[in-house]
């Protein structure tokens, strides 16, 4: 109990203090809601506009998870390919690097020439989530302990058994690190991609709600949409961290309590 208070007390208190100061400042200073809405108004707007915002939240979630799933398949798949056929990997890796270092905001308008807005946003989110998963998984696969590899060879393990029983588990911590980064980036990619693609109307996500509310000077709704994005990011981070913790808690230093 006291450990929980010690761990979650300070951040919660800091957050509560920030909200209290914000609320008090807006009320006492008489700040207009179209400049800075009070937290209470943001919450009220979130509830009042829930039908519009929840539909957009759903769209953003859908794109984020679809992009992350594609990035997982593509990233892990390409990492295995690089690992298995070096020449093929050496050919494909520069392309992945070029896509990684080119800002997705610059790619989005070009994607729009060929794709529907929602597909373009999906590709944007995929592009940013893909690389950390690829590079982390490839690094994990390349850094298997040499003595363990030798031991597997001694006991006559073939290539696939060595991959399945040794190299994949050994790469798991690195892969999960990539998943944590990729999960966060998929959401960022979905938001940035939507802003850049300017997707509008039906089937538009939270980013569009923010720019739309901005044009209408509906600042409380901008904040309400922003709040949903932040909460989604937090949930994403918590979920990937939990997956990582559950997978590693028995054996990996990163997930094992220090006093154990």
């Amino acid at each position, binding site marked *: 109990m006291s450990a929980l208070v010690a761990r979650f007390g300070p951040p919660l208190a800091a957050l509560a203090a920030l909200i209290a100061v914000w609320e008090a400042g807006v009320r006492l200073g008489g700040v207009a809601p179209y400049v800075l809405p009070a937290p209470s108004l943001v919450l009220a707007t979130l509830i009042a506009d829930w039908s519009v915002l929840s539909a957009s939240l759903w769209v953003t979630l859908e794109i984020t998870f679809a992009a992350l799933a594609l990035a997982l398949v593509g990233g892990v798949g390409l990492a295995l390919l690089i690992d298995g056929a070096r020449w093929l990997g050496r050919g494909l890796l520069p392309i992945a690097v070029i896509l990684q270092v080119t800002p997705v905001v610059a790619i989005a308008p070009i994607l729009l020439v060929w794709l529907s807005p929602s597909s373009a946003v999906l590709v944007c989110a995929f592009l940013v989530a893909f690389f950390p998963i690829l590079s982390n998984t490839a690094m994990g696969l390349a850094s298997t*302990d040499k*003595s*363990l590899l*030798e*031991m*597997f*060879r*001694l*006991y*006559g*393990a073939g290539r696939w*058994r060595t991959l399945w*029983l*040794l190299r994949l*588990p050994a790469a*798991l911590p690195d892969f999960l690190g990539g998943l944590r980064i990729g999960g966060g980036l998929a959401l960022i990619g979905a938001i940035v991609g939507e802003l850049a693609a300017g997707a509008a109307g039906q089937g538009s996500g939270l980013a569009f709600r923010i720019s739309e509310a901005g044009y209408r000077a509906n600042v409380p709704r901008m904040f309400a949409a922003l709040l949903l994005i932040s909460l989604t990011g937090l949930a994403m981070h918590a979920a990937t961290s939990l997956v990582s913790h559950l997978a590693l808690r*028995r*054996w*990996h*230093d990163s997930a*094992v309590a220090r006093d154990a």
Partner: protein
Amino acid sequence: MSPPLVSLRGVGKTFANGVTALDNVSLDLRAGGFLSLVGPSGCGKSTVLRLIAGLARPDRGEILWAETRPRIGFVFQDATLLPWANVFDNVRLPLRLAGQGARDSAAAVAEALRLVGLADFAAAYPRELSGGMKMRVSIARALVQRPHLLLMDEPFAALDEIARLRLNDDLLRLKAETGASVVFVTHSVYESAYLSDRIAVMSPRPGAIAAIIDVADDGPRTRDFRRAPAYLDACAAAADALRAHAGKAVA
């Protein structure tokens, strides 16, 4: 006398970088024998072991087996355990790689763990164990297939003296119980004299056999053996051979 279990005949090994690791090494291992390879770091002791294990091929000479190659257990310098697998699964690994199911191998794993004194630790994870216990798990893994030949590459070098002394005694008991032959690499003449019936002293660069020392049979290998003339003679002979062949290295 029965033919040796394995004979190295004029074996040489040159690495890809041009360094000659071994030159003209000839060595016999009796069936049931305990042979130690002693030498300074970098003299190719581990290479001899890897050649016998089939992890590397000799460039010159040949390795002759009495009949077919026997089942081999290998203990590495580090415990080399899978950190994500518990003790049971780590010990079971060679059986699993040989295609045996978990249920069929349970008895063999339990027996191997009993031999190394870790019967109660099957569910523990490597990170929960001390260095000595990890090495015991590693030895149990090497024993689980009931090998006829146990190859050990400086297995106790990283352990504290107490753990090392204990494991030395346990190793002798294990050998007596399983009847396996052992090739044991160490850089300690004391350890080699205590454990083996034969010591091969190696000289460095390129690695070669400098002397073969037979440890006289002088009663059971217990604490008292460390005061027995056979032990002291072997220590002195091995130390002399080491010094005589240390080469130009400054030490």
